[in-house]
């Protein structure tokens, strides 16, 4: 069994970190994992994306052209990756910044207002964690417990309320995905 997701958005949205946290959760579950970044031109700006593969045996190709899951954090990412989602796969859309959906009928689409949720919790920079919560909750690619314990481990060392704040936005994401009324099934 091999599962994949591509997180895509602006540079600075924390896309890469979200992927890394997910991969760590996969590892915590004893799975094989692989995190593959896009590393664009040697300069600032533009879109960034990463793909995470979690599998129960050695991972062959790190290149996944038709990922099972895609999370588009901004419009250019939606345009680029929505057509690639594998038939039957899942497309998550950051509805705070994207006001359209993919015309595809053969995939599931879930809208998550990442920026709005993060802003509501006065943690505007954590849209990636909101997204991670929503993605894990919806895809089950790793267990929520594994993901939470990774967050504890990674943010526990940070000073101040970082851990609490992070868990808060994570759970907001989880709830959004679980209680999502706007989900569109293909």
């Amino acid at each position, binding site marked *: 069994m091999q599962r994949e997701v591509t997180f895509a958005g602006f540079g600075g949205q924390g896309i890469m970190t979200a992927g890394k946290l997910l991969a760590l959760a996969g590892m915590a579950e004893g799975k094989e994992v692989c995190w593959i970044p896009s590393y664009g*031109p*040697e*300069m*600032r*700006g*533009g879109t960034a994306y990463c793909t995470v593969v979690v599998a129960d045996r050695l991972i062959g190709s790190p290149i996944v052209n038709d990922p099972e899951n895609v999370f588009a954090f901004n419009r250019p990412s939606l345009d680029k990756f929505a057509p690639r989602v594998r038939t039957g796969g899942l497309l998550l859309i950051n509805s705070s910044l994207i006001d359209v959906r993919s015309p595809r009928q053969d995939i599931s689409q879930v809208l998550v207002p990442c920026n709005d949720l993060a802003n509501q919790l006065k943690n505007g920079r954590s849209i990636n964690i909101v997204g991670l919560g929503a993605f894990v909750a919806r895809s089950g690619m790793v267990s929520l417990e594994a993901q939470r314990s990774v967050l504890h481990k990674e943010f526990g060392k940070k000073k101040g309320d970082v851990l609490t704040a992070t868990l808060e936005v994570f759970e907001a994401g989880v709830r959004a995905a679980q209680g999502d009324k706007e989900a569109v099934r293909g």
Partner: protein
Amino acid sequence: MSAPTTIFRRPEALRDAFTHYCPGCTHGIIHRLVAETLDELGLRERTIGIAPVGCSVLCYNYFNCDMQEAAHGRAPALATGVKRVLPDRIVFTYQGDGDLASIGTAEIIHAANRGEKFTTIFVNNAIYGMTGGQMAPTTMPNQVTTTCPRGRDVNTAGWPIPVADVLAQLRTPAYIERVAVHTPRYTVQAKRAIRQAFQYQAENRCYSFVEVLSTCPTNWGKTPNESVQWLEDVMVPYFKLGLKKSPDRPPVE
């Protein structure tokens, strides 16, 4: 009422392209000054620019004149090649501090020393921008970069190289000046210097070199306005601005 007169607009020598530079990065200002100069002196159609490797590598997409892209640090060698075979054209290199003051040290010194009749615009932003913020030869003492995470230690990495001052020690006649573009007051001076540099070239007088202090908000980890302030507070006192050498001075002191 008469039609309005546009008193500030994009120069013709700057293409109408959206640049890839980060918000507030002063590479854009320097581009504009060069382009304005080419327009004002009527040089655009006989100019060949040489792009470096660095954030400004893509300047070949922005300058509206013939352009070449050099290997990292080698722009002065390419420019030498071009100017020697086309002595009546205008040639300039546009180079960052990693490009010019690190890997390309030999090339710039020898082009200047041979007195190649081209112009160098040297963008000193105290860091390697394109590769994501490593230490440059011009990184300030104690400045943190990804390859000096504890700040530049002058005991092991040395002091920032004052390139314009070093080049000015060569005996071959040249025009060498250091300027900045972080506020309009400085930008006006920078414009004058860049114009002067191309003017000397157009007159076939000498090699000309303008070092421009520039910001890199992204890799300095600062907002554009904070960057302007840092440049003023930290870089300007160290990298003394002003004319370092003029072709009117005799070659040997």
